[in-house]
């Protein structure tokens, strides 16, 4: 029996999710132009501060974590044997 096809088995649906994400990015970043956010600190007043910060923070996080692997990563059973 053929297994039922699920929503993300089709590449088209995955592309749709990605497109929706791009649209969401444009809309929320664009909202900064029309909506004046009230701020506590001058950082926050910069245009697109949260958007840029969020993107850069995640990229930096992943790239640094990848580098950390070189120092920290051991075999899965590292502590199970001694040498």
């Amino acid at each position, binding site marked *: 029996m053929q297994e039922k096809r699920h929503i993300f088995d089709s590449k088209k649906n995955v592309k749709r999710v990605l497109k929706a994400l791009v649209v*969401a990015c444009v809309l929320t970043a664009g909202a900064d132009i029309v909506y004046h956010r009230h701020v506590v600190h001058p950082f926050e007043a910069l245009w697109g501060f949260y958007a840029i910060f969020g993107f850069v923070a*995640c990229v930096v996080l992943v790239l640094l974590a990848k580098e950390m*692997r070189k120092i920290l990563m051991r075999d899965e059973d590292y502590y199970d044997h001694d040498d």
Partner: protein
Amino acid sequence: MMIEFPPFAFFYLAALAAAVLPRVPRQALMLAVPVASCAALLQLPSDLLVSMSILDLQLEPLRVDRLSRLFGILFHIGAFIGIVFSLHSRDRTQHVAALAYAGSALGAVFAGDLLTLFVFWELLAVSSVFLIFASRTERSFGAGMRYLVIQVISGVLLLAGALILYGQSGSLRFEHIGLTGAGSMLIFIAFGIKCAFPLLHNWLTDAYPEATPTGTVFLSAFTTKVAVYALARGFAGTEVLVYIGAVMTCFPIFYAVIENDLRRVLAYSMINQIGFMVVGIGLGTALAINGAIAHAFNDVIFKGLLMMSMGAVLHMTGRINGSDLGGLYKSMPVTTTFCIVGAASISAFPLFSGFVSKSMVMVAVLEEGHPVVWLALLFASAGVFHHAGIKIPFFAFFAHDSGIRTQEAPTNMLIAMGIAAALCIGIGVWPWVLYDLLPFAVDYTPFDGSHILAQIQLLVFSAAAFAWLKVAGIYPPELHSTNIDVEWLYRRLAPRWVQQTTAASRRAVDATSRAGEGLGRNLMRLVLHHYGPDGTLARAWPTGSMVLWVAVLLGASLVLYYL
């Protein structure tokens, strides 16, 4: 007149009963206990102090005020959800341990003096460790023993600190302590161990992922939240906590990104969430404390929900590594949905519970003039969405299809997750229910256009970063691996050092004994040479030579006499 029946007593009695009752009555009892106990708690007056004196010691085994009442209610909710989630289990040990553990957590938050706190502090450790042992693997046994040792050390430090304070002030009452001297320092470290301060944190990420699928749900609810409560009570406004908390929010997210075991990812993200609470407690303003406590409340529920969803995956597939999972949305769609609700809550999406509490801490940090800490917390907020909000659901339920086909989790698990998910959304939409319970009056509007927009921008662009890294093939793959952390010091370096030292001392002893043996042998040879059967002095000498030598001696004495 009503007798004040302490909430922990219900759970301890139930634990005793659960040890002998057969399965069905045991299940009924376990479901009834949190409900009955919570009803009794709500009947207690809102300010209550029960005192007694034992051997000249003034003890307060039951203190109810706004702070302890909130944690009391929270622990009842956590216990109830955990019990529903573990109802299918036939393992009596786990049921008894879970009830005793929940009782100990309640005992600790209602303790009015440090000695009572100490007793429950240690009981928390002793009861909870059975939830780790219950996995019944060699790994879980080792992790459980390490967990127990570290927890007991925390208790011993607490007792030592309490005794020093008692010696100074003559009182054991558990009020604001503040960092003032050796005694308070010891208590601070004791709380810090249970709270998973940086460098003292590794017991959590070591032991929690080794517990049973149901045990981890209880573990994630109680121990660290008791510590958060204790810090809020004893060390509110201690500035160093702001910096400790900021470090706690940031460093675990790096580990979470590269960790393969998804329950261990959640354990790291737990430290990250506690970091936000610790920062709030360190600031000590009404808004910050309220934010910290509200976040502790929400964290028990959304972290519990995430732990439950991963527990369900482990229960159904026997696997929990990101590298082995994927595509489970096909066979576990309901669990997937609940997991996403938990993920949205921990990531602080507007209208989910994390948003209404974390933002209080964030605002307080800026208002109190800590922009650098604020940036660190913002980084951690993006990071938590990245590893807990996206990574957990993505690698378990989506990603590449692992080919695993299973069924939806048992009904009791789904109900437990459903309750937690409903609470996550309920509190996210009507936060005032929670705000009314907080220790200070709340003058804060969570749903304000600027906050909502800023948070959505942060999250949408974090998601975009994940998508871009993944599509571009930069995102690190999930790999079977162990990442070394502080535990390396006591699991590898210290044992190795002890081994080397003992080997070196054994060598030294061997060398000494060999040298001694050689010396002894030479000495013996010398003795034998002179005194042995053929030795110079034992030889049968001819009588003539005897006479000769006597004559020589006599002659010599004669000569000496005349001189």
